[in-house]
C-alpha cells in the first residue's frame, strides 16, 4: 500500500537535528491545545504531522516560527530550539526568526500585487538583494523552485490573485522560498488543490528537501507516506508517536496510531 514511498529512510538518521522541542505546552485561554510535546526535527528532511482534526497540528507548527504570537489569547511554554538557540528567548526577534523559518498556509494567500512583487516582497523587506538585477535573479530562481516559472514568466506583472488555485499555492511556496529560509513549514498546502496540482506540489516538496528542512501538516496519509521521511502523529494535543514514516505506517507502536491510520478514528 505504501510502496510509492520514494525515498528510503536510511540516509535520514545521519542528518543533524534542526529543531528540537522539549516540553512544549500551548494554551488558548483555558484550552490546553498542546500537551508536553517533545520532538526533534532533522535537517534536510521532510517531516509530516498527521492526526485527527483539532488535535493541534497547526498549533504546534505555528509555534516553530512563533506565528502564535499574533494570537492574543495564545500562550506557549516550553523550550523550542533552532540550531540550538532558544527561539522564545527574549532577545530573539520573531521577524528574524520567521525569515529563517518560512511558512506556507492551507489556503493560497497571494498578496494583491503583481506576481513579481509577490515574490520580491520577502527579499525586499529582508534586504536580500543589492540591486534590481539581483532581485530579478532571486525572483526567477524562486519561481523556478516553485515549479511555476514556465507558466508565469510572460506575465510577471499580472496580479497574483489572477492565477488558478494550484498556481497560487505554488506562487506562495515560491514566495516563502524567496526569503531563503532554512526551515519551511507547510500547513496542509494541498488541501485546496486538485490531484494534478497536488502532484506538482509534492514533487516540489521533494526537491526542496535538498536544501531545507520541511515540516508538512497533512490529512492525507498517502501524501504523508509519499513525501515524508519522518512522521509525527498527534492526538488530542499529545504527540503520540514519532518516527520513520515507514515504521509509523507499517508497524505503529501505539494503538491510537494504528486506529487512526486504518481509519478508525479521526
Amino acid at each position, binding site marked *: 500500500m505504501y510502496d510509492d514511498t520514494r525515498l528510503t529512510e536510511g540516509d535520514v538518521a545521519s542528518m543533524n537535528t534542526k529543531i528540537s522541542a522539549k516540553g512544549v505546552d500551548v494554551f488558548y485561554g483555558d484550552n490546553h491545545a498542546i500537551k508536553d510535546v517533545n520532538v526533534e526535527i532533522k535537517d534536510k528532511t521532510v517531516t509530516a504531522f498527521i492526526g485527527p482534526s483539532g488535535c493541534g497540528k497547526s498549533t504546534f507548527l505555528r509555534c516553530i*516560527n512563533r*506565528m502564535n504570537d*499574533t494570537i*492574543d489569547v495564545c500562550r506557549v511554554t516550553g523550550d523550542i530550539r533552532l540550531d540550538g538557540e532558544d527561539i522564545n528567548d527574549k532577545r530573539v526577534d520573531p*521577524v*528574524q*526568526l*520567521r*525569515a*529563517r523559518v*518560512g*511558512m*506556507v*498556509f492551507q*489556503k493560497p*494567500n*497571494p*498578496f*494583491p*500585487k503583481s506576481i513579481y512583487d509577490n515574490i520580491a*516582497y*520577502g527579499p525586499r*523587506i*529582508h534586504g536580500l538583494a543589492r540591486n534590481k538585477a539581483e532581485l530579478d535573479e532571486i525572483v526567477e530562481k524562486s519561481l523556478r523552485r516553485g515549479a511555476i516559472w514556465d507558466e508565469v514568466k510572460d506575465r510577471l506583472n499580472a496580479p497574483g490573485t489572477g492565477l488558478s488555485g494550484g498556481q497560487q499555492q505554488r506562487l*506562495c511556496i515560491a*514566495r*516563502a522560498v*524567496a*526569503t531563503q*529560509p532554512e526551515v519551511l*513549514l507547510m500547513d496542509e498546502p494541498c488541501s485546496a488543490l486538485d490531484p494534478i496540482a497536488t502532484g506538482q506540489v509534492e514533487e516540489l516538496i521533494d526537491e526542496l528537501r535538498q536544501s531545507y528542512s520541511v515540516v508538512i501538516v497533512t490529512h492525507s496519509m498517502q501524501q504523508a507516506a509519499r513525501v515524508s521521511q519522518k512522521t509525527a502523529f498527534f492526538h488530542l494535543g499529545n504527540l503520540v508517536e514519532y518516527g520513520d514514516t515507514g515504521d509509523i505506517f507499517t508497524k505503529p507502536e501505539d494503538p491510537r496510531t494504528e486506529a487512526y491510520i486504518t481509519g478508525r478514528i479521526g
Partner: protein
Amino acid sequence: MSVAWLLTALVLLSLAGFFIVKGRALASADGDRRSLHSLPNYYGYNAMLLVFVPAFFVMCAWLVLQPILIGASVSSEFSEQNLTEDMNMSLVMSDVRRVADGLDQAIAKGAIGEDEAEEVAADLDGLKTLLSSVGVVLGSDVSDDIVASAQDYRGMAGTWSVIRDVVVLILAVAGFAYAWSRTNASFRARNTVERAVLALLIGAAFIAILTTVGIIYSLIFNTVEFFRLYPASEFFFLLEWAPSFSGRGGSSSLGVLPLLWGTLYISLVALAVAVPVGLLSAIYLSEYASPAVRGIAKPLLEVLAGIPTIVYGLFALLTVGPFLVSFFGDEGYLGVNWMGGGTAVMTAGLVMGIMLIPFVSSLSDDIINAVPQAMRDGSLGIGATQSETIRQVVLPAALPGIVGAILLAASRAIGETMIVVLGAGAAARLSLNPFEAMTTITAKIVSQLTGDSDFASPEALVAFALGMTLFIITLGLNVFALFIVRKYREQYE
C-alpha cells in the same frame, strides 16, 4: 370643523366600524367563530381600513390642493382686473394670503366676530391695527383690491372646507357601508386586509422615491427659473460673486466658481486633517490596540460623530478662530499677520476635519477588518514586521475601500453647512491663502434664502442653482464611492 376634529372624527368612526362589523361577522356565523373564514378581528380591520384610509387620503390631497387651486382662481381674477405693470403676482398673492390668515386668526382669538370681518375689511387702517394686534404685520403696499381678494379667498376657503368635511365624512360612511355589506361568514376578510396592508407597505416604500422626486423637482424647477432671469454662462464662468440686494438682477454678479473654490478648499483642508488622523487611528485600533484600549478609544472617537454640527460651528467661530488668530494674526505669537479675522478656510477646515475623523476611522476600520487574516499571516509568516504587513499588504488590499471611504467623507465635507456658515466667513474669494475668509456653496444657499430678498428674484433663485450644483457633486461622489465600496466588499466575500 378644523382638520384636527375631522381627523378625530375619522378615528372614532373607524373604531366604531371595527366593533360593529366584527359583531356583525360573529352574528352572521351565529356566534360560532369557527365557521367564519377569518378571525373575527379581520372583519373589523377590514371595516377600519375601508372607513379610514380612503377618507384620510382624500383629506390629505384636499389639504394640499385646496390652497393651490383657490390661490390660482383668486389670482386669475385679480390679474384680469387690477394687476399693474410693476406688481409681482407672487408678492400680491402672499399679501392676499397674509390678510386672509390674519382675519382668520383675529376671529379665532375672538378679537372680532365672524360677521364683523366684512366691516373691518372696509377700513384699511383699522384692519392693519387689528391684524398687528394678532401678530400679523402688513406691508405698506396693501391695497383695497388685495383686501377684497383676501375676502374672496376667505369666502372660497370657507366654502370649500365645508365641502371637504362633508366629502370626507361621506367617504368614511360609504366605506363603512361597503364593509358592512360584504361581511358574512364566507367573506375572505384576512386576505382582503392583507392585500390592503401590503399596498400600504408599498406606499411607504415609495416615499423614498417621492422624496427624491421632490428634491429633483424643487431643484430643477427653480434652477430653470433662475436661468431664465440670469445667464447660465455667467453663473458657470464668472469669477465673481457679488449679489446686490437692492437692485433686481442686472447689477448682481452670481458666479459659482468662487464658491466652488471655497467649498473645495475647505473640504481639502478638512480631509487633510481627517484622513491621516482617521486612517492611522483605525489602523492602530484594529491592528495594534489591546481590547481595553480599543474599548475606550473607539467610543470616545465615535462621540465626535454624534455631536451636532451647530456645536462644531460654534467651536470654530468662538474657540478655534480666536486661537488661530492668536498665532497667525496681527500681533500673534508668530508675528506673521496672515490672518485678519477668526473666520477663515483654516478655521472651518480644521473643525470640519475633527468632525470627519470618526467618519473616516470607523469606515476604514470596517474595511481593514474585511481584509482576510490569511493575507496578514502570509506576510508575517515570511518574516515581515507588522507595520510592513500593514503598509505593503493590508493597505494596498484595502485601498479601493479606503478610497471609497475618503470620497464619502469628501461628499460630507462638501455638503456640510453649519461649520462653514459660522466658521468660514462670508466673503467669496478666489485666493490661495488658507488664513483668509472664504465662503462656500452651502453657506451661500443659507444666506440667499434667509435674507429678505424676494423669492422670485435671481438673488434668491440662485440658491436653487447652487443647491443643484451641490446635489450633483455629492450625488456623483456618493454613487461612485458606494460603487467602489460594494465592489470591494464583494471581492472578499
